[in-house]
């Protein structure tokens, strides 16, 4: 990579402004095309048959009657998706999740699929498929699943991470541990110790757009996939591997995306659609219903967490310890590990220990959800921190400031921090007018901080300059929150032209080199780095062309504010050449002008946020109302402040839903009881106050503009901030998320009864 990513400390013309996003008009007028909006001639309707059982052996599947139904063009089972994963355990899990092979592992697990001429025929065909199940005992609760007596979800899983290899299979796929110092000694130095257990229920990312795709496999072995995804290059890799296709022969085009938040980071139905198309010889459109989205796609973990924190009278934390148990669905994951890494990351601790357990249960395969695993850990830790501050008699903000990590602090997950923003976010929260606003009866205020890593990854970008001087920017990271606007600003900044002359698109997988998906808060961080690099490469070409037009050495030509300048006394009479003038002559100076970049954008800076929340609790019903909410977060550099604020507000809104209402409810039969937005209640506009935001800019030293990722951290503090607010309003410590009215009422009544 011939590119210096270090922070340059420059001033900006375009970056930091707030133009309208290029996809805005299409989205508000309904012209934008999402996953289900694409159609092909002769396309069939795909539908999936799902297990009604939480855990069952599949003895036999008879598809003959369905195949004979007029209008049915293909029926597939796991036999049509043979195992081509070559020992890759992670991919095998994805394959098994797309189509159950020997066992149905959760209510909603796909067992067969059909492609038919219309939806009615497809539904009829599903009813004609006969599946012979042998029911098995199931387990859905995280703590129950850890018991020795629990039914085994997968008897091939032996706990990893133990010093001695276990001899018996277990529902605990892995144990992980982080920390430093001696917590036993640390607790010995403490004057106050808080020790509590917490639970959080499973939630869904709640993206409004369901999973949707159109697949078309040709008889010559090439294929097209139009799909709603956070990473079309990753989907191409997954689908190509699972179907035995050459990646270059599968072109994947990403549609607009109606939310993903981590839930669209690996394939669910897409290999099924491709397999159906391959068998039917016609394009197949497969769109999940909301019921299917809930039952069979990406929820986050349910958790059970024990926290113990000790501090001296002067407010110094002496030791911190947590045990974190996270469900991962029926497959191994790294969710508890991430919780264990992030739990105490906000604090400067001499003695800290966290242990994580990945727990298999008969629930859908856990997927990432915006800063995966960190919100639940933060809920437990920040609740205990608040309680400890209260015991000591110190203001909770001052307590956090006193113990906040800073540059040079050894993080709880290991390395020493560089420049970080936890201290400034806490100071900003302390000085925010929100903290001083009066509260009324039954209202409580809570605050909490949160941490997330962020990362970069493989990125490829093309920048093409048309003969009219306008610029096309082709990126490979899916735009989930306004990145096309941000990246256009970056291109305009580098080239020295107006934003309105740049048009950014998300290119398909056959038009651009590989890009990692838009996750880990990497979209704008990574693609802005690649855009800067591509623009600088284009500027080099522009300088060369200007040198030709002037017939001067290229080394004497410089680029300033969108113009080539010939520097030197002998060029005094040469007027600067604008980008537009150089582009107009490109056909005569060597052809098209373009800049390309491929790089690995590593060095994403870690991110911190502090949230403040006011809640009113009705002591008669346990109902809550969010009165006021403020987000303070470090963005490094906000390229497009409006969309940074949007990320902050979006994370807070999702966190409010998670904290107060959202919950997967399973019956004793292991079936999901509330797979719809009527019974699984995400917040709507009337549930939310205007969420105030404050952007801090502490530059990331590993990005030319200082950019940090901003997409995920905003969901980390809300569960804790809201729990602290509710606890203060209700006068009782809340330890179970969501804090739905019945749970709050029960806590209030239990407190009254002593």
């Amino acid at each position: 990579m011939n590119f210096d990513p270090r922070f340059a400390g420059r001033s900006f013309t375009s970056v930091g402004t707030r133009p309208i996003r290029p996809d805005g008009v299409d989205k508000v007028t309904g012209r934008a095309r999402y996953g289900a909006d694409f159609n092909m001639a002769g396309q069939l309707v795909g539908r999936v048959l799902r297990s009604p059982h939480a855990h069952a052996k599949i003895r036999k599947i008879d598809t003959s009657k369905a195949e004979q139904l007029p209008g049915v063009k293909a029926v597939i089972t796991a036999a049509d998706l043979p195992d081509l994963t070559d020992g890759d355990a992670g991919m095998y899990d994805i394959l098994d999740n797309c189509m159950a092979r020997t066992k149905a592992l959760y209510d909603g697990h796909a067992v067969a699929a059909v492609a038919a001429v219309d939806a009615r025929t497809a539904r009829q065909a599903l009813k004609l498929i006969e599946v012979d199940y042998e029911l098995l005992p199931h387990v859905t609760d995280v703590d129950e699943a850890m018991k020795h007596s629990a039914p085994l979800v997968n008897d091939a899983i032996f706990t990893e991470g133990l010093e001695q290899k276990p001899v018996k299979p277990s529902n605990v796929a892995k144990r992980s541990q982080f920390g430093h110092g001696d917590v036993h000694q640390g607790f010995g130095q403490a004057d106050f110790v808080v020790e509590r257990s917490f639970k959080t229920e499973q939630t869904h990312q709640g993206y409004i757009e369901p999973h949707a795709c159109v697949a078309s496999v040709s008889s010559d072995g090439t294929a097209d996939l139009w799909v709603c995804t956070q990473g079309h290059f990753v989907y191409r890799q997954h689908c190509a591997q699972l179907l035995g296709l050459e990646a270059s022969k599968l072109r994947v085009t990403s549609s607009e995306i109606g939310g993903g938040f981590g839930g669209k980071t690996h394939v669910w139905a897409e290999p099924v659609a491709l397999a159906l198309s391959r068998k039917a010889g016609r394009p197949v459109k497969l769109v999940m219903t909301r019921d299917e989205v809930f039952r069979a796609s990406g929820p986050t973990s349910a958790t059970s967490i024990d926290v113990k924190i000790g501090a001296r009278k002067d407010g110094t934390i002496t030791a911190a310890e947590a045990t974190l148990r996270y469900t991962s669905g029926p497959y191994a994951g790294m969710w508890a590990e991430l919780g264990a890494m992030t739990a105490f990351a906000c604090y400067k601790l001499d003695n800290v220990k966290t242990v994580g357990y990945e727990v298999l249960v008969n629930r859908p395969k856990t997927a990432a959800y915006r800063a995966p695993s960190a919100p639940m850990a933060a809920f437990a830790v920040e609740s205990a921190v608040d309680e400890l501050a209260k015991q000591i008699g110190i203001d909770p903000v001052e307590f956090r400031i006193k113990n906040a990590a800073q540059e040079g602090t050894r993080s709880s997950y290991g390395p020493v921090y560089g420049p970080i923003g936890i201290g400034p976010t806490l100071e900003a929260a302390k000085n925010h007018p929100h903290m001083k606003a009066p509260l009324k009866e039954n209202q409580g205020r809570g605050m909490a901080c949160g941490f997330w890593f962020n990362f970069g990854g493989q990125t490829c970008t093309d920048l093409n300059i048309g003969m009219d001087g306008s610029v096309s920017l082709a990126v490979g990271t899916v735009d989930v929150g306004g990145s096309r606007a941000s990246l256009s600003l970056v291109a305009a900044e580098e080239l020295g032209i107006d934003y309105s002359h740049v048009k950014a698109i998300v290119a398909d997988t056959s038009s651009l080199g590989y890009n990692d998906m838009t996750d880990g808060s990497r979209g704008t961080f990574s693609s802005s780095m690649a855009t800067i690099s591509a623009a600088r490469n284009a500027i080099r070409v522009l300088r060369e062309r200007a040198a030709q037009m002037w017939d001067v050495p290229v080394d004497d030509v410089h680029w300033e504010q969108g113009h080539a300048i010939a520097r030197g006394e002998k060029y005094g009479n040469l007027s600067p050449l604008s980008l537009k003038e150089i582009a107009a002559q490109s056909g005569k100076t060597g052809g098209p002008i373009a800049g390309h970049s491929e790089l690995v954008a590593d060095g994403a800076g870690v991110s911190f946020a502090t949230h403040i929340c006011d809640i009113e609790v009705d002591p008669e019903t346990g109902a809550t109302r969010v009165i006021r909410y403020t987000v303070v977060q470090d963005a490094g550099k906000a390229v497009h402040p409006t969309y940074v604020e949007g990320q902050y507000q979006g994370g807070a809104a999702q966190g409010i839903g998670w904290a107060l209402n959202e919950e997967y409810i399973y019956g004793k039969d292991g079936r999901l009881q509330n797979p719809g937005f009527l019974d699984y209640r995400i917040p709507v506009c009337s549930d939310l106050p205007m969420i105030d935001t404050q952007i801090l800019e502490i530059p990331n030293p590993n990005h030319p503009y200082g950019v940090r990722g901003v997409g995920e951290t905003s969901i980390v503090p809300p569960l804790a901030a809201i729990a602290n607010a509710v606890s203060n309003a209700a006068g009782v410590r809340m330890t179970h998320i969501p804090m739905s009215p019945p749970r709050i009422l029960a806590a209030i009544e239990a407190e009254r009864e002593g």
Partner: protein
Amino acid sequence: MVEVTLWGSLGALAGGQSKVEIEAKDIRELFRKLAEQYPGLEPLIEKGIAVAIDGTIYRDTWSKELPEGAEIFLLPRLAGG
């Protein structure tokens, strides 16, 4: 020679050590020599391990140099949403 710190669970696969010393100029050489000296680590390296150099986390830049005296810390490869 750089000193490399392994996260808690990783140490068990390196003979119970939490720190190892490796002669390596960059991440690529570090991974190669770790796999040679501690074969138990190889499957994890294959799956992906991140390297923190003086606090900055690198997931994919295997050409990144390991400066003399830098703090080198191995971490699980992160997932994101």
